């Protein structure tokens, strides 16, 4: 953090502590102030970021904190964190298969480990371990391939036998009773979960302290380009804002926004559903995921089981999804955790995920000068927020993609150099 001596950062860094809470408790907590301002948009910014989710706010924070770019605005059509940042199941891990992905997500995971203190905001990163189950011989081979690859990359990874998996997650049924019994699992002990809203708010507060304008209720309605075709301004519901560098970081609406600049992206938007149970006392010590049966589960600090489903099968912007998709997810989970049938679903919801042909994100410039993309994270963007924010900010400041991000450019859909993590899980026979 090169700017750690900056007084504004110091103020933000010191603002939250137990001592302060103690002092405030004597005065009815009347001394707290806004965590981020509510500024009017200025006429021009060096960088305008569209989308006040984790990725957009983290990018803004790193632009201000590390790249010396202070005239930065984050435009959010509703309230910050109202998209996928506030709807996801918060799984954080870096045990991807391909080196390009490993580099990106491991960079991010390292930042997660110190994020609360970096931001002086408890994002509750809980490295409780992420277990990915294998249910067929083919799954087990794919899991082992991941473990080999991760270890070579210096990422912590272990292969678990069913008994070892059971020891880490006692309510898991590792008998032969389920239709798809557990045959093995991967384990990343440094992986875990975090409090999604706190990540958004923490970045907003820190970015705001550095002078970034976080502008809510400001929807982008158009992109203006100059005679040379370069970005010159964005039109918003709160007026036009001039900028020469526009970054679209609005998961779920990337195609709509890119369309305003005349681009068609390799993206389709699907509903992704999640649900929580009623709060219960601790029963799930770690994160368990199964790609084979499309189920993801952890337990929140409040006690709810947080469950992710597979994406719905048709594109939609309705943030709703079909009932039978959640049903199918619970089918699977109740097979693996037969004690959970008596728990009850308290709430389910959907987000919109932007899926690319290779399910890897798009990070980098476009054919339109001044227009940059940070999108296409599919179902797994939350975990990348700190890393993508830092590296994307560096890319914007340099005007060229950071080496870690370079493989994720839009150009890969011209050359065919896809980064398809799912191919390794191709159906076997």
């Amino acid at each position, binding site marked *: 953090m090169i700017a750690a001596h900056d007084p504004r950062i110091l103020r933000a860094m010191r603002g939250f502590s137990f001592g302060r809470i103690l002092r405030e408790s004597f005065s009815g907590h009347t001394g707290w102030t806004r965590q981020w301002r509510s500024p009017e948009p200025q006429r021009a910014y060096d960088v305008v970021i569209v989308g006040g989710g984790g990725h957009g706010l983290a990018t803004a924070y790193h632009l201000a904190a590390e790249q010396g770019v202070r005239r930065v605005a984050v435009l959010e059509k509703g309230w910050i964190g109202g998209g996928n940042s506030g709807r996801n199941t918060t799984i954080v891990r870096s045990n991807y298969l391909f080196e390009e992905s490993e580099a990106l997500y491991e960079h991010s995971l390292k930042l997660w480990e110190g994020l609360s203190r970096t931001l002086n905001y408890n994002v509750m990163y809980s490295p409780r371990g992420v277990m990915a189950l294998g249910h067929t011989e083919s799954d087990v081979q794919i899991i082992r391939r991941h473990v080999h690859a991760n270890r070579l990359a210096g990422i912590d990874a272990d292969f678990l036998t069913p008994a070892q998996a059971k020891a880490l997650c006692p309510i898991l049924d590792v008998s032969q009773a389920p239709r798809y019994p557990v045959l093995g699992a991967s384990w990343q002990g440094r992986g875990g979960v975090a409090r999604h809203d706190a990540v958004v708010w923490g970045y907003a507060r820190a970015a705001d302290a550095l002078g970034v304008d976080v502008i809510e209720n400001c929807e982008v309605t158009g992109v203006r380009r100059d005679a040379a075709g370069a970005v010159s301004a964005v039109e918003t519901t709160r007026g036009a804002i001039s900028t020469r560098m526009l970054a679209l970081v609005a998961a779920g*609406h990337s*195609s*709509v926004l890119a*369309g305003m600049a005349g681009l*068609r*992206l*390799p*993206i*389709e*938007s699907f509903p992704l559903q999640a649900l929580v149970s009623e709060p219960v006392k601790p029963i799930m010590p770690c994160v368990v995921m199964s790609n084979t049966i499309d189920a993801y589960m952890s337990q929140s600090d409040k006690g709810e089981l947080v469950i992710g489903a597979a994406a719905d*099968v*048709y*594109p*939609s*912007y*309705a943030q*709703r999804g*079909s*009932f*039978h998709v959640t049903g199918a997810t619970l089918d699977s989970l109740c097979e693996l955790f037969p004690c959970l049938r008596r728990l009850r679903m308290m709430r389910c919801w959907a987000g919109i995920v932007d899926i690319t*042909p290779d399910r890897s994100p798009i990070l980098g410039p476009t054919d339109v000068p001044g227009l940059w993309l940070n999108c296409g994270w599919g179902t797994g963007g939350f975990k990348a927020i700190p890393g993508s924010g830092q590296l994307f900010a560096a890319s914007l400041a340099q005007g060229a993609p950071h080496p870690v991000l370079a493989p994720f450019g839009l150009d890969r*859909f*011209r*050359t*065919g150099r896809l980064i398809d993590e799912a191919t390794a899980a191709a159906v076997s026979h």
Partner: protein
Amino acid sequence: MLLIPCPHCRQSRPEREFRHCGEAGLLRPVDPAAASDREWTDYLFARTNPKGESQERWRHVHGCGRFFVLRRDTREDACVTSRAGVEEAP
């Protein structure tokens, strides 16, 4: 669970009988060998992904097995109409 009108069966049937097959109107270059990389990869990857009315290919995979084009509003998940022809541009 959408109710989807199959123009071949002339019935609205539940979503689970169908398979979504992507955006309609993507034209495969007539002579792929003559297409530039840009033209070819646009056909392969670029999508309109509209927010609003969308024309998309579906197949009644657990019914008549045939493809058709469905007009649907992606904001509301409302199916509007469907038509049998899929070969011509919408």
